[in-house]
């Protein structure tokens, strides 16, 4: 294995470690939210610092590879894709942190009918499944797994679009605990962003492997 191969392998391992950490953060979000576990929500805030630290480290490693090895072709795409995947993972981490803050913002558990109305459990499961697909895609350089993410993102978008009318209905009906349902609306938006960011990651994996640019295409599959 050449020196550059060793550096790229190390970079990929770092990205996968960050990817798994971010997946764990989103999973904790789901559990903190559905189980109203404020300790778990606080744990997410602490762990977010680790996510940020990893982002800086991966950024620096990419910069070093570009400066020292002048990679071209697939190696260049690997580094460029890593930079963008890194940035998207960090933002997913931020969204997980945001969700945990909404959990800590309320004093009592989110009412089950609200959770159901906003399809929070379903959203969290889809987002987690997308992150698992993108990890598999990166680890095995598997663009089929990467493409699975796109269809799942469409499902998140559908749920997200319904959330506004769900909120309107609750307002019109004079439902109790407006802070709870307003926070849930914000949480829906966060999960939708997590979906977009995971989709971005999958696009970068496809760019790295197939040299195809899918960004800004309407139909990415």
């Amino acid at each position, binding site marked *: 294995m050449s020196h550059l191969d060793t550096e790229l392998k190390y970079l990929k391992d770092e990205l996968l470690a960050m990817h798994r950490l971010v997946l764990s953060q989103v999973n904790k979000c789901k559990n903190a939210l559905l189980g109203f576990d404020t300790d778990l929500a606080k744990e997410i805030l602490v762990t977010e610092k680790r996510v940020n630290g990893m982002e800086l480290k991966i950024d620096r490693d990419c910069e070093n590879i570009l400066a020292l090895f002048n990679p*071209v072709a697939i190696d*260049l795409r690997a580094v460029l894709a890593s930079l963008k995947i890194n940035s998207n993972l960090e933002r997913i981490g931020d969204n997980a942190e945001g969700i945990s803050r909404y959990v800590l913002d309320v004093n009592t558990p989110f009412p089950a009918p609200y959770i159901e109305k906003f399809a929070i459990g379903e959203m969290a499961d889809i987002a987690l499944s997308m992150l698992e697909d993108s990890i598999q895609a990166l680890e095995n350089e598997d663009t089929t797994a990467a493409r699975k993410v796109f269809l799942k993102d469409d499902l998140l978008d559908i749920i997200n679009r319904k959330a506004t009318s769900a909120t309107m209905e609750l307002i019109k009906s004079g439902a109790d605990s407006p802070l709870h349902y307003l926070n849930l609306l914000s949480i829906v938006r966060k999960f939708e962003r997590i979906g977009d960011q995971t989709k971005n990651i999958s696009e970068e994996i496809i760019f790295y492997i197939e040299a195809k640019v899918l960004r800004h295409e309407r139909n990415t599959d």
Partner: protein
Amino acid sequence: MNKIETHNVNLHYGDFHALKGISMSIVENSVTALIGPSGCGKSTYLRLFNRMNDLISSVKIEGDILVEGKDIYERGVDVDELRKKVGMVFQKPNPFPKTIFENIAYGLRVNGIKDKAFIEERVERSLQQSALWGEVKDKLKKSAFELSGGQQQRLCIARALAIEPTVLLMDEPASALDPISTTKIEELIYELKNQYTIIIVTHNMQQAGRVSDRTAFFYMGELIEIDETKVIFTNPKNVRTQNYITGRFG
């Protein structure tokens, strides 16, 4: 417009098949880089265009090699006239054991030009074109060997330009130079491509990326791939090209 074309060119050195069916077009006023491992045929291919390979007795060449639409291997082609049109710069600077001025003026005199004012004007213009005038204008009478390696190479480029070629062949022109001289040569190539069709052989991948519009990858006498340089260095189509440029060859 294509300045140079080759169609199914085969070249043998005795029993050795050095170029295998090479067909390629080179666009006027562009820089084409030839890359590939040692012995792949890129320098042999470069030397087709000023018929330098003719100097090797065992060489046998087949196929069409056209410069400005004319087959340069046809009977009756004047090789001296061809070499006025197709200049060449070599890996190591090879100035003549003469003054800086005479190095440039030599080619003009050999071609029968005697007008002193004309020669002086052409020497200055060639040195300016090769970005050397500012450094040597006060020492034109000094020996060319007093110049640094990078300056000597630019002098050789000026010498080639003095007879007003339209094609410039460069065989690893910066491989023996330090980074500063290399940068000057590369900037010069960038400037010259507006007026000349340049073909450069280089082992330096980054140099090919920086200076050329198109890059051709040769391997074992075959042209494996030619495309825009930015395509070759970001998404080559052939796995052998990718392995070579990423250093995973062999």
